[in-house]
């Protein structure tokens, strides 16, 4: 995939929900090439918690049997886009755990393209989005399984929580399968905090923001479970949640 020189428009599917004006300030986006050799294991972490617009584009290639664990926390930027292209070699394993937290008129997006090029590779994507105010949060995730990539196991779990009815969540998990023996699961849900649960927590003395924070902390925890730096990621996410609530 070559770098697109011209600023994209919303006609492009990958930028359909983007904030093009904010994007223009950080365009063009440099490709960050990451190559894992056969059998190599690597944990990667992206935390974008500044206020300025930011866009990243990771291109990750995994050799046979390589394992990559990528965690993303986007919480704070007025516009934040993290695009991740992954190509999996035979028996490779890719884990993505991402949380994006937005309020005001912020626009955050995670755009992934995971190509199972060879047999027996696995990919797990877990994306949790919390949106307040007039924020927009988007996940566009394509999983492609090439011809002959039998034994593929690909999962996408995408959930968004709207704290205000004025916020917008977009989720588009996509599967493109050209192999026969493939396990692919995707789940996608957009919802609001459970009112019963909130009352239960408040009836024990938690203030409404505390009750919401506790429930949201549990909601996003799934994105960071098992991460090398799980505690730090959670702490950063909670700090942002407290500011949003």
């Amino acid at each position, binding site marked *: 995939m070559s770098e697109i020189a011209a600023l994209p428009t919303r006609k492009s599917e990958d930028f359909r929900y983007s904030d093009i004006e904010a994007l223009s300030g950080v365009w063009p986006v440099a490709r960050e090439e990451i190559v894992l050799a056969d059998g190599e294991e690597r944990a990667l972490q992206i935390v974008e918690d500044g206020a300025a617009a930011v866009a990243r584009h990771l291109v990750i290639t995994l050799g046979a049997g390589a394992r990559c664990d990528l965690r993303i926390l986007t919480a704070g930027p007025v516009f934040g886009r993290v695009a991740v292209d992954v190509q999996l070699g035979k028996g490779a394993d890719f884990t993505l755990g991402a949380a994006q937290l937005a309020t005001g008129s912020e626009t955050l997006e995670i755009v992934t393209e995971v190509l199972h090029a060879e047999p027996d590779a696995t990919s797990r994507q877990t994306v949790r989005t919390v949106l307040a105010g007039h924020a927009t949060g988007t996940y566009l995730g394509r999983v492609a399984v090439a011809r002959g990539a039998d034994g593929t196991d690909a999962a996408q779990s995408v959930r968004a929580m709207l704290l205000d009815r004025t916020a917008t969540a977009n989720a588009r998990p996509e599967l493109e399968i050209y192999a026969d023996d493939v396990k692919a699961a995707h789940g996608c849900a957009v919802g609001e905090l*459970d*009112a*019963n*649960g909130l*009352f*239960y*927590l*408040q*009836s*024990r*003395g*938690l*203030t*409404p923001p*505390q*009750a919401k924070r*506790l*429930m949201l*902390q*549990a*909601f996003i*925890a*799934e994105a960071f479970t098992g991460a090398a730096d799980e505690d730090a990621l959670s702490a950063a996410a909670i700090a942002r949640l407290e500011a949003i609530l």
Partner: protein
Amino acid sequence: MLTINNLHATVADKPILKGLSLTINAGEIHAIMGPNGAGKSTLGYTLGGRPGYEVTGGSVDFDGADLLAFEPHERAAAGLFLGFQYPVEIPGVSFVQFLRESANAQRTQRGEAPLSGGEFLKLAKEKAGLLRMDMDMLKRPVNVGFSGGEKKRAEMVQMGILDPKLAILDETDSGLDIDALRICGEGINAIMRKPDKAVLLITHYQRLLDYVKPDFVHVLAGGRIVRTGGPELALELEEQGYEAVA
């Protein structure tokens, strides 16, 4: 401690409580019994401040304060505990974290110093022991995967930790087997039968009252208290049914 005067409440615009009056003094245990649909749970939720339960008339005084003016968390901090008929599952949040934050939220609202981690765990262990509940269960997510009986015992552990002045227990006996019923009953006595505390038990059946002896029994029907008596009234109800007695 609690004075309910001519309380009217609606749920989804439907009148449920229609002029309920009740006074509970410190040191007393009251039981409210009544047929399905009488408004028993509505009374509990209305006193707890659940959204959707709208007070349309009357007043509730709790230790000299207007209870109805308080938000749910403020009612808890003022010393009110609501035991749920159906305790809610909160995936991903451990009991220990939830209860420590709750206890400390109440203490902060009352201007008291928060409990340290060690102080809290000691307290939790003691109260869990009263209800014969393993501390490991409190490390699990709130009510997730708990049986009906375990949920109710966990409610009583919460009550013990939060140490309220007044506990309103909504059908704490439902879903309990004989042993769990006895354990919950003994827990209620140990935690709440004190001169400065009071309990309002909401129940269908007499059986919990074998363990937690009420000072007063009220019959709730059609959104009001239609009869009040001593413990013997519960036995009379059990024998003759609500229609004959109320």
